[in-house]
């Protein structure tokens, strides 16, 4: 009671009045505004400009009355909806298993849950082709098993391919979000229902499911948002105008038909939709928080081992399924990168040819692999800088947003998350428009790529630090102050050390996101800026899948090393 009052509205405590925290957050806010709002407003202004350079709604009207626009929008929403439904359906049984049982392989599934946030979409595309393609691993396996002449699975460049790729990419989100919420649900309600005579299925239908609704909706809105703004998957797997989405169309107009104003007008439409989706997502999160508050962590559900053979085999099958479904394509990439044709007939054998080409030990005229080594260097540089800058921005913002429940701070939190509401293609377009003002300096182009990546990555960093920051009791800060530490000394000596592992995770996220970022980079960069995903995209475009696999393996290795480093850092702190 007294605590509520102490931090309640209208009360000035030392933390509110501290100049340090204000000094900490202001530059971050200004920077974010600068990085995010300026490109965005350039896009918006482009949409309202007519050929003579004056203000006009004509372009908008043209876009909104064009049947093509509506066809694209309809398709975009449809594929997002189908992908979301499939992802949630795959995720839900796993969420039940994770929340209820203890079984071998559980930690693998848990680790898979964070994958969608960091796995580069270009890897998903590549993995999908390698795994499910006509000459892919699944088909090869099936052909050799059943002695078939033709590949039985012809899924590439169909609607189904898009949906399955999206599901593979996004179902772990549903799995992670729903299971972690499910774990918190106290089982006493279930027990109460059972004592009143409800059978297990009835309990699930009448007690558990209604209480899971906020988590399911939360996962759904997030997945829908990701699928709505999905770009690389549709660009490659969609294959043609039949499966064009809003984001692909924006890219096409901006970089191929050079209809920048048209691209800007479509961006407006995209932003409008994503804003609605983010608002919906935040609303579901509020619902979840509200329910958690009511239930106030009384008892955790006790995990138990599955009792029956039936339960055991379901758990086992799910583990196998998700490992094959998610890790299979990634393993396929690594496997395929070490294979090369040895004879004219196309028989494959172990070879390091692609790696030799990649590192310039062997040159093949005209192959995009020639620039791979410099692309790796550039990507690593960009990712390292992005990780550092996003970490600084994310930490500064978290320090300010830590004590919320204040109206002004809630709006600030929304504002800090705003970059999430704008798809990375649109961010890329904004920076492309900025870059068109200056001409032809490569270094500037690289800087713009870094800035675009910072805009895309910093909300994720904030998201990983803020919850940990809020877990630090205020009394720690207060204790440090009474012990003679100034506010800034307290920040460095108490808060930062306690946040170390969250900061490491955030930085690793930012690094991985930047390393694999292709949407904004492709829209923004000219031919002189070549990052790893762009080389991979070009390799896939020229049907050099094996070369793309070799580069993809390096990409996987880089991200894996960074995550392993952060993990070891976390361990060393807690032992």
């Amino acid at each position, binding site marked *: *009671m*007294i605590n509520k*009052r*102490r931090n*309640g*509205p*209208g*009360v*000035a*405590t*030392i933390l509110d*009045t501290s100049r340090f925290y204000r000094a900490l957050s202001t530059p971050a806010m200004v920077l974010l505004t600068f990085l995010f709002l300026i490109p965005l407003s350039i896009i918006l202004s482009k949409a309202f400009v007519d050929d003579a350079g004056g203000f006009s709604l004509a372009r908008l009207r043209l876009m909104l009355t064009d049947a093509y626009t509506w066809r694209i929008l309809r398709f975009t929403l449809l594929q997002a909806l189908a992908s979301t439904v499939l992802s949630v359906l795959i995720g839900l049984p796993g969420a039940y298993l994770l929340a209820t049982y203890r079984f071998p392989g559980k930690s693998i599934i848990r680790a898979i849950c964070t994958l969608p946030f960091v796995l580069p979409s270009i890897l998903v595309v590549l993995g999908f082709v390698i795994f499910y393609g006509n000459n892919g691993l699944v088909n090869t396996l099936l052909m050799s098993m059943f002695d078939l002449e033709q590949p039985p699975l012809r899924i590439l460049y169909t609607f189904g391919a898009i949906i399955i790729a999206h599901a593979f990419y996004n179902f772990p989100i549903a799995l992670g979000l729903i299971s972690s919420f499910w774990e918190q649900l106290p089982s006493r309600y279930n027990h109460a229902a059972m004592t009143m005579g409800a059978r297990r299925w009835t309990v699930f239908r009448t007690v558990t499911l209604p209480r899971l609704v906020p988590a399911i909706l939360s996962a759904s809105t997030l997945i829908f948002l990701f699928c709505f703004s999905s770009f690389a998957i549709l660009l490659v797997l969609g294959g043609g105008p039949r499966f064009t989405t809003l984001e692909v169309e924006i890219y096409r107009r901006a970089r191929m038909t050079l209809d920048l104003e048209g691209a800007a007008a479509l961006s407006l439409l995209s932003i409008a939709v994503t804003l609605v989706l983010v608002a919906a997502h935040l609303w579901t999160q509020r619902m979840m928080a509200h329910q958690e508050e009511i239930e106030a962590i009384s008892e955790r559900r006790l995990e138990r081992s599955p009792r029956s053979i039936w339960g055991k085999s379901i758990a086992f099958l799910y583990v196998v399924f998700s490992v094959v479904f998610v890790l299979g394509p990634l393993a396929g990439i690594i496997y395929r990168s070490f294979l090369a044709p040895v004879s004219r007939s196309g028989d494959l054998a172990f070879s390091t040819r692609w790696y030799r080409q990649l590192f310039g030990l062997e040159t093949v005229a005209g192959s995009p692999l020639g620039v791979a080594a410099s692309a790796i260097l550039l990507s690593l540089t960009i990712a390292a800088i992005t990780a550092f800058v996003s970490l600084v921005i994310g930490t500064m913002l978290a320090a300010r947003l830590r004590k919320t429940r204040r109206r002004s701070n809630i709006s600030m939190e929304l504002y800090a998350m705003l970059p999430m509401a704008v798809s990375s293609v649109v961010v890329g377009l904004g920076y492309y428009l900025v870059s068109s003002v200056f001409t032809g300096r490569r270094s500037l182009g690289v800087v713009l790529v870094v800035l675009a990546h910072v805009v895309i990555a910093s909300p994720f960093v904030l998201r990983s630090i803020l919850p940990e920051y809020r877990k630090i*009791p205020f*009394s*720690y800060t*207060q*204790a*440090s*102050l*009474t*012990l*003679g*530490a*100034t*506010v800034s*000394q307290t920040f460095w*000596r*108490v808060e930062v*050390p*306690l946040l*170390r592992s969250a900061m490491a995770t955030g930085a690793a996220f930012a690094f991985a996101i930047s390393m694999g970022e292709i949407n904004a980079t492709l829209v923004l960069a000219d031919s002189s800026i070549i990052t790893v995903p762009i080389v991979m995209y070009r390799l896939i475009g020229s049907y050099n899948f094996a070369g793309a696999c070799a580069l993809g393996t390096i990409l996987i290795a880089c991200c894996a090393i960074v995550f392993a480093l952060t993990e070891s850092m976390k361990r060393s*702190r807690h032992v």
Partner: protein
Amino acid sequence: MSDSGLVCSNIRVEYPEFTLSLDLTVSEGELVSIIGPSGCGKSTTLQLITGLIPCESGSIMLNGVDITNTPVWERNIGMVFQDYALFPHLNVEQNIAYSLKLKKIIKQERHERVARLLELVGLEGYGKRKIALLSGGERQRVALARALASEPKLLLLDEPLSALDAKMRKRLRQQIRKIHEATGITTLYVTHDQEEALTISDRIVVMQEGRIEQFNTPEVIYNNPSTLFAAKFMGEGTLLPHSLIPQTLVSIDKGPDTVVFRSGGETRQIFFRPERVIVHDNPALAFPEFLPHLRFNKTRVISCEYQGGQYLLECDWNGYTILAYCRHKPKNERVSLGVRVNDLVEYVDGVVTK
């Protein structure tokens, strides 16, 4: 005289639904408890004194120095938090040395001081332990040692024992008292437990709704509570209308005290504690004191609760409830109760009258 110790004059802070306003003087070396129900402003008072909440008006002087506008970190006031707030990323020794390190005290001296503090709180050899591995009582003592490390001029304890079990509470409050005597540090101790306040303090502040109800020694607070609120908060008791006195008064002429019955309005009330009540099984028996007293005949015992050393009787006398302690269990349902007039406290509108 007001040069040493803590002097808070007219400090005030306003919240939408609550105002805290108080005057408080604590002499140097004194241990003063602040007691009151939750939400009365005890913790807020400590936060104001430490500077964690800025003072809206008034002034705070510590040993003659005005610290009203001094930042928290320059006040040198030690504080033990309710949840101890030990830093989990540091071990016991590093927690205690935190303030010493900030003051850039050299390593060797730091070590010596930490060792001395650990000895003071009875935790020798605990220096390298992780906070997470300590028990509640050990954490509390580490928090105390940490607060004392920078040799503060004032020590504040915010319900330091509330998270511990009853046995540990008793042991640790004795230890806190001992440490207080050993260091002689001026101490403010916030608690909601009246027994704790009575046993540990030199003086007690009773607070309610942001105001001080009474500020006096434990004996005075217990025996002569200046308001009905303080009376009820500090322990059990019986409240009766003053108008019952004529019916129940047994005056003994030979005694030194003569009773002057002041007729009063409806709002005049009398209050007495259960241990002041004498219980007789035999209705014919007189109360032996040669002093004026009130006598309640034919009181019905409603409940008799065994409390270890004694019984707490809840009795009904003509519709009034009277509480009394008794060494033995009454044999009959009806008993006679007697209270000495000297043990009565009189209130008008909830405030004590002389």
